[in-house]
């Protein structure tokens, strides 16, 4: 194992990658693969997931573009296509493939993508800041009570209704998070304002995690 066997930590994100292919010296159009000689560039794994997949570093993304880019990079890096290469090259393909898979998984899911981007931008983790938006817990407590009542009474329709309210709640939170990220991206303002925005995203994300957990319990019962 070499030094970079872990998924790229966001702390090291933003490092510059070489502009030229280490093997054939051709200029690199994208960080991971040399389009001239198809060699994998190991240092690409030091960059962030957005850059690795050739996407702008922002919350809103084009799902089709993510899929196409992922599939194309898989074609170049999958270990199955390096079976006749040296063990060293095979090992590189394995690591690159694992990193790509993790990058794709992170960016595909809106909540994981938001968490990752928040960390990249220097926001706090859920362990560091456990706050939720004002009034959120009250609403949740009410819903949980109603849900418990519906379940005790065997009212599946009412339980279904509450689950659907929760889903609406979750979607609303995600929309707000998207707007906050966009605001942060466009903000030309002092550090304090930007930090406030990140803190607000943190609180909204904590709320999403809460709703998601409740929903998985409700849906688990229904499944």
């Amino acid at each position, binding site marked *: 194992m070499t030094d970079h066997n872990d998924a790229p930590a966001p702390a090291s994100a933003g490092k510059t990658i070489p502009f030229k292919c280490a093997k054939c010296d051709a200029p690199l159009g994208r960080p991971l693969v040399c389009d001239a000689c198809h060699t994998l560039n190991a240092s690409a794994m030091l960059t962030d997931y957005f850059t690795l997949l050739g996407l702008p570093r922002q919350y809103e993304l084009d799902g089709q573009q993510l899929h196409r880019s992922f599939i194309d990079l898989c074609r170049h890096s*999958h270990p199955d*296509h390096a079976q006749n290469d040296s063990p060293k090259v095979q090992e590189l393909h394995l690591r690159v493939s*694992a990193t790509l898979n993790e990058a794709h998984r992170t960016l595909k899911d809106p909540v994981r993508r938001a968490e990752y981007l928040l960390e990249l931008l220097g926001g706090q983790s859920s362990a560091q800041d456990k706050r939720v938006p004002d009034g959120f817990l009250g609403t949740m407590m009410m819903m949980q009570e109603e849900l418990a009542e519906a379940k005790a009474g065997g009212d599946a329709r009412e339980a279904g209704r509450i689950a659907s309210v929760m889903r609406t709640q979750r979607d609303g939170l995600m929309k707000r998070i998207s707007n906050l990220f966009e605001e942060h991206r466009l903000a030309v303002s002092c550090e304090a304002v930007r930090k406030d925005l990140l803190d607000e995203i943190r609180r909204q994300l904590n709320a999403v995690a809460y709703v998601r957990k409740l929903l998985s319990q409700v849906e688990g019962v229904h499944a």
Partner: protein
Amino acid sequence: MPETGGIILGIDLGTTNSLGAYMTAAGPVVVRDAGGAALVPSVLAFGPDGQVTVGRQAKAHAVENPLSTIYSVKRLMGKSLKDVAEDLRVLPYAIKPGPNDTVLVDVAGSGRTPQELSAMVLEDIRRRAEAALGVKITQAVITVPAYFDDAQRQATRDAGRLAGLEVRRIVNEPTAAALAYGLDRKSDSCIAVYDLGGGTFDISILRCSEGVFQVLSTNGDTRLGGDDLDRELIDMLTGEIRARFGEELEFGPATRQALKAFAEEAKVRLSDYQQAKVQVDLGGGRVFERIITRDEFEARAAKWIDHTLEHCRRALADAGLAPGDIEEVVMVGGCTRIPLVRRRIAEFFGRNVYTAVNPDEVVALGAAVQAGILAGMKRDTLLLDVTPLSVGIETLGGGMGKLIMRNSAVPCMASETFTTCIDNQSAVDIHILQGERELAADCRSLGRFVLRGVPPMPAGMPRISVTFLIDANGILNVSARELKSGVEASVQVTPSHGLTAQQVDAMVKESYAHAMEDFEAHRVIDLRNEATRVINAIEKALGARGHVLAASDRARLDQAVADLKAAMKSEDGDAIDAAMRAANEAAQALTADQMNDVLRQTATGRKISEF
């Protein structure tokens, strides 16, 4: 036999049947015997002389010799005695506990691991392929149910090694099926593969675009299949037999094998006909006769089909899709011939199900395609699979701390940092788990390892990074290093339900040794058979035309035949071979005369102008 021409054999190692396939420039091709049969029943019969037969012959042997006929071994792979308690009820052969919480099958007093038994089936498949292709085969891609856990995958890989095969890849069966079905597909679409085999059920959701097969999610049950439907019929029959002939009636192993065979046949028949007649001879003039209707069978099968739909629902949820998003439903496995299965699945997905290719062969064909990819024959096709179950470690308090989530694309990697809790602690004990439950005790234990060589430091100071890697086979690899000192800690995982690397190595060595003995034994048997043919031919010819031989030739021939008869009694293949050659040579005068005679006879009665 010439060395392998780089051929990697694709093998579908099934609960009920197994078969091989290989890749050609024109596409994958199933290995068939001279009679055109591809399926080899995954059944082993152990003769009193220690000889093992595999396949159709072994299956025919089941009723007369129930205790030494072994089938459904796949159900035992990577399992403990506790895991298979339910199966023991219907399996006529005996099972006992093995090392590392595994099971051993009792064959004539000696315990055989499921790996060894599966290796015998794999070896038979390999020999068939070698006979069909005329080259030696040393590499294989073997398929497993997508929902197989780590221990079951490792056991399958070990079985391959024991069969003298380098297992280049373990591929999931539904994914293999998709590879075989969707070869020509160009457009971007989502498909579901519903695979209900003899003993296992899988559902996989895939997105296919331009030769890339991306598995989005998989779900299933490694203990649900045609065997369970057979068991429903067996339970029905035994219940009725007891009601008729007395509750105390005991079923011997032979009757149980017979019931199993009848149930299987009735199930198959009920796919094509509305009813099937079963007749069981219980001995002592007691004969049980029963006509089973399709409706009766469906009523008993329904709950199992409902279970599979539950798994379909979960797989769709994990893929983030609704039934309507699926553009094609592919049916795999013998049980998908059952009309009820087809009807229910079509209802669930709201579309017709697709079964154009033979559902028994499609998995092996897909394995051959993957073999072609690995051999570099197919660069335009790529398979991106997932791991079916989450992997994690036991946390303080007996919880399951997930490190890799189910349905993560493989290969995938996760790292976790550990530390020590007492000063100068030099080892850390780690328990690896697989499963979705919250408590460690409810998850499958994959193994334990002790991180040794931690440099002496105050408690909480060392930072040991452990990396869990699930490779493209879906098999877990663990490595560890201490970050402060950079010391690589040694990791030796002791499997909870399997063989250690050393045990497999020892078994491989032993099997090579045995393989040589086996080879010699086979050769001697073949030579004896041929020698008998030679002697018979000579004696027949002597009877017909012994008079044409000169006395000296006759004496020489008699001596050669006597020598050959003596040599046949020995175990020395070379001696038999030499004596046989000598006898053939001594008989040459006789055969030459015979040839002339044949020519004369042919010529008689024909006009010269005809020559």
